[in-house]
Structures are given as C-alpha cells and as structure tokens.
C-alpha cells in the first residue's frame, strides 16, 4: 500500500531539478521523473520496501530517487554521490521541498563503500547506476557490489537489458537472488526530446534483488 497516488508522486518528482550540465564521464543521465515514480511506486505498493525503512540511494545525483523514497514514507534516506555539482542540485532540491529525513554523503560509491562501515545497514537500496558503457566499463556491476554490501534485504536497480545474463551469473556468485520485475525503455537524451531521431531509447531492466542470504 502506498501513501500517495502514483500521479501525485510523479507531479512532485517533476519538480525535482536535474543536472545542469550532465557529465559524460560519470554517465550522468538524470532518472526521468516518470521512470522514477513508477519504479518507487512499485517498490512500495508491490513489495512494501520503502515505508518505515532505512534507505540508501547510490549515485544519488540530483536526488530524484531519495526524494521519491521520502515521499513514499521512507523513515530515513542517505544519498551517496561523488560529484560536487550534482550534490549542489541535490542540496537545493531537498532544501526547496523542505525534506527533513534525507541526508547526503559526498563520497566515492565504489571505493569508499566497499570498506565495512556501512555493511548491512540499509533495509532497501535504490539506485540508477551508470550503465557502464565506454569509459565506464563495469561500473554498473561495481555499484551493484556496493549495494549488496550495504543492504540487508532488498536492492532495486536499473541495468541495460543486454547485461541480463551477466548480472544473473554474477549475483549468483554472491548468493543474491534477483529477478527482472519490469522492462522499460529509457530515453537517455532528453536534451533532444523534441527531435525524435536524435534521442536514443535503450532497453533497460528494472531488477529486484534479495541480499538477505548474501555471501560477499
């Protein structure tokens, strides 16, 4: 059961500012508010994994998923983000909406979160990691590894459909179970939203992982 209607959630999330100048190297695609709201609404209404939970948002960017998690009743959310410009936008978004139960920590999700201090802390991890293309090869899996360490229960994440088999194999090695709960088309070039040919749709899987029996 979700405390807010999907339409209302999406309305709020449309008010969340995105990146001013997305950085290619960090693969900063903002999570579209429509995708973020559908994803979060499912996490709460189908799996009851936000309300009253301690939630982490890895690579939190402008804070779209952190803010949405709060709106659906997360008790406390911590966003982890590397980039100072993204953090500035996150800070403004959280301040504008006067949200008291969201923190942000500036750190390297890959390097700083694979030490043990945050291990098993979070009930739920949500993330829209870099897809791990070109310069960032493998980055998506390294984010997932951090997520598995941090969580004690559920992880929700977006990954390119083309990586599905690899993710299944890798998560099995960590004794983490996972399933694709939705398939979506992700328009990564919203700057060109009025020019259909210039925007690229990529096929993305919405994954749900259970890390409660993990071995990592």
């Amino acid at each position, binding site marked *: 059961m979700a405390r807010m209607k999907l339409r209302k959630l999406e309305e709020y999330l449309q008010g969340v500012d995105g990146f001013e100048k997305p950085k290619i190297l960090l693969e900063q695609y903002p999570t579209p508010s429509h995708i973020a709201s559908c994803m979060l609404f499912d996490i709460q209404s189908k799996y009851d994994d936000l309300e009253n939970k301690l939630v982490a948002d890895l690579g939190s960017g402008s804070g779209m998923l952190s803010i949405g998690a709060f709106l659906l009743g997360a008790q406390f959310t911590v966003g982890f983000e590397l980039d100072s410009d993204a953090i500035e936008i996150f*800070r403004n978004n959280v301040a504008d909406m006067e949200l008291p139960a969201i923190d942000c*920590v500036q750190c*390297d999700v890959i390097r*700083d979160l694979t030490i043990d*201090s945050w291990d098993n802390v979070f009930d739920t991890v949500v993330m829209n990691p870099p897809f791990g293309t070109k310069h960032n090869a493998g980055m998506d899996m390294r984010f997932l590894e951090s997520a598995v360490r941090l969580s004690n229960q559920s992880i929700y994440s977006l990954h390119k459909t083309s990586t599905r088999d690899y993710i299944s194999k890798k998560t099995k090695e960590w004794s983490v179970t996972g399933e694709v709960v939705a398939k979506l088309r992700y328009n990564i070039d919203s700057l060109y939203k009025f020019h259909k040919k210039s925007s690229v749709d990529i096929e993305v899987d919405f994954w749900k992982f259970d890390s409660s029996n993990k071995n990592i």
Partner: protein
Amino acid sequence: MKLITYNFLTSKCIRGVKVGYPLKLKIVQKEVVQTDFNPEFITRLLPRLDYPTVHMAAELVDCAEGVPKELGENYAADQDLLQKLHHILLEIDIIEGQLECPETGRIFPITQGIPNMLLNEDEV
C-alpha cells in the same frame, strides 16, 4: 548531516588508517528538524549502530540527559528512551562543522549539511 549518518562514517579509506572511528565531530552550526517518531524503526536500528558513539554524540549536542552510557537489554520497551534516541539520531542536523580522522588528523568538512568524505588519489 544527522547523527545517524555520523554514526557510520569512518576514515578507514585513508591509506595506513586501521580503524578510523569514531571521527571527531566539531559542530559550528546545527539545526533541529522534526520527523515522525517510529519506535519500531529505532529499535531495529540500534543494533546496527555503535552505541558508545551515539552516547558521545548525544553529549556533544547536550541531549545526553536520560540516555544511558550503555544500552540495557530492555530498550525496546522504554518509549522515553526511544523517543530521545529518535531525536538525537534523526532530528539534529549538523549544518556546518567538520569530522576529523582520529589517526591522521585529516579533516572532512561538513558544508551546508553535507559531509565531504572524498579523498585525494595520493591519500588512498
């Protein structure tokens, strides 16, 4: 930065640092926010926290009255205590200040509520 977040931060990523915990917290400016009290949440959270550091932080923000130095076994039934811990952990927001590595003295600034834990390449 709320004190729940503070409780998990370490400087262990610095090369040569063994424990890096707890970081020394210096508060320049703090605010009090209001969040919904959920006793079950606090009860579930407490075993994941380092309790001596919770108490130390409580003293630092002048909220340690009625908060025991050591957590007894029946804390889940003590609504007053859970309420106090809720306030300490989730409602005190450190806006400006710093965190200091106990082993190297490296400073991590807290600016407009966000701690910057990033290290330079030559520190890791």
